[in-house]
């Protein structure tokens, strides 16, 4: 029985390692194809445009709404509390730390996982089942070059752009909302906010968006292309893509925080 257990455990570990190696191989191919993407741009350009449209533009209203809500809430709650200690100026540091450094890239990533990560895995899975991937191969188009790379670029660009809009909406939209309850002069607000914002914050926010976008798209594509036999596999792979993307995003976030802020 112990032998059987040991064997099972061994097989599980070996299986897990093989899966990770497969993913790393896929990742390597994606990175390589990234470099030569410009060669196929006349074919993949349309895919890229459509990806940015779907992932970025069509998520804009949701992002703005959430950002304004969060920004307004932070200002309302923070101002009430800090004013009691005469430390209302700390609010600007809190806004920068919470919105710019953390929430903007994180919440945008989660929204993109829910919308686009899901969609990419489903789409590619269905393409696999319908032999559309084979059709691309027969034409001579690398599925990674034609499907994965433009989607990855599209998701990365979308996440970067949405991150910017999240910050703008969160910081200034929040000011707008809170003005109904605690009027703060805009010039004062802006100058104090600017004093707290550093280039490091902006750079870190951009780096996070890049990494989040890249891994969300790659993981979703990998899971979608790994559908083998039937359409019933598609939702299973989609769920796996979402869960893995969330895990990786959080781990990257923690890693960057440890690297830059400790």
């Amino acid at each position, binding site marked *: 029985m112990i032998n059987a257990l040991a064997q099972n455990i061994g097989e599980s570990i070996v299986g897990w390692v093989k899966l990770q190696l497969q993913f790393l191989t896929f990742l390597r191919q994606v990175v390589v194809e990234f470099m030569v993407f410009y060669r196929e741009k*006349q074919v993949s350009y349309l895919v890229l445009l459509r990806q940015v449209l779907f992932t970025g533009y069509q998520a804009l209203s949701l992002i703005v709404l959430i950002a304004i809500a969060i920004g307004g809430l932070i200002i309302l709650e923070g101002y009430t509390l800090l004013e009691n200690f005469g430390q209302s100026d700390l609010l600007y540091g809190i806004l920068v730390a919470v919105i710019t450094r953390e929430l903007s890239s994180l919440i945008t990533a989660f929204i993109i996982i829910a919308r686009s990560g899901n969609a990419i895995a489903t789409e590619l899975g269905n393409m696999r089942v319908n*032999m559309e991937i084979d059709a*691309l191969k027969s034409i*001579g188009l690398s599925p990674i070059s034609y499907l994965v790379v433009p989607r990855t670029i599209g998701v990365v660009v979308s996440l970067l752009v949405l991150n910017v809009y999240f910050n703008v909406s969160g910081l200034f939209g929040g000011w707008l909302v809170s003005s109904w309850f605690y009027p703060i002069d805009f010039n004062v607000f802006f100058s104090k906010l600017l004093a707290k914002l550093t280039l490091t914050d902006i750079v870190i926010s951009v780096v996070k968006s890049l990494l989040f976008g890249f891994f969300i798209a790659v993981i979703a594509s990998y899971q979608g292309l790994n559908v083998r036999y039937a359409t019933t596999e598609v939702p299973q792979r989609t769920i796996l893509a979402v869960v893995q993307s969330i895990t990786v995003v959080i781990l990257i976030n923690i890693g960057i925080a440890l690297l830059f802020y400790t």
Partner: protein
Amino acid sequence: MSTVEFSNVSFFSDGLAIIDELSFILPEHKLTAILGRPGSGKIVVPKLIGGILLPSKGSVVIDGEDSKTTDDGKIKQIRSKISYIFRNGGLISNLGVEENIRLSLDFHCQHLTESEKKARISWFLKYFQLPETILPKRPANLTRSEQKLVGFIRGMIIEPEVVLIDEPLENCEPNSQRLVLNQIMENKSKGLTQTIISQSLEQILPISDFILVLDKGKIIELDTRENILNSKNTITHNIILDYYMV
């Protein structure tokens, strides 16, 4: 003209050998019908030629180039000479008809101007009696016959040297079948190398020049139509009989 050579090619799937050490040269400028029972590997052979699958062992050499090459330029060069026509058209579902056609046209015919490309598309639409209004439509909005014809257009528009056709007449209305057969005959007259897999032998056999008989992943016979039909080989005989029994 492209030569296609199989050299000890084996292909495994889930540990099973679908084809086992195949070695042959595809007859050039000829139409070769591939016959075999289910699981014989008759679908794998054209896929190996078409680059959809890569051999597990051995090599498929096309015009002196191994199909397993990783050189993008060589891959593109090989693929520009070979078209695979899928049984259901093989169209990309989130692209329109025109976009599907342009997928191969833009990739392989970058030397053509935009107007030349448009002219070519128009010519083929006329040939296959499809209206221009079909161009913006998505594959889901087409009939199966239309999907197959668009698949044909996508394959033929790049003027390949080798055409691999999987079930050209399946789920096709009679008019479409006639158009497909006309295209195949025209390809023959142009001297293209073609392979066909089809269940309706009575339609394919008369136009075939060669027949490749496969069974359990091995070549039974590769010979002219006359020789195969007169073959004394029991397996060949039984396989042909199976086709006529359907």
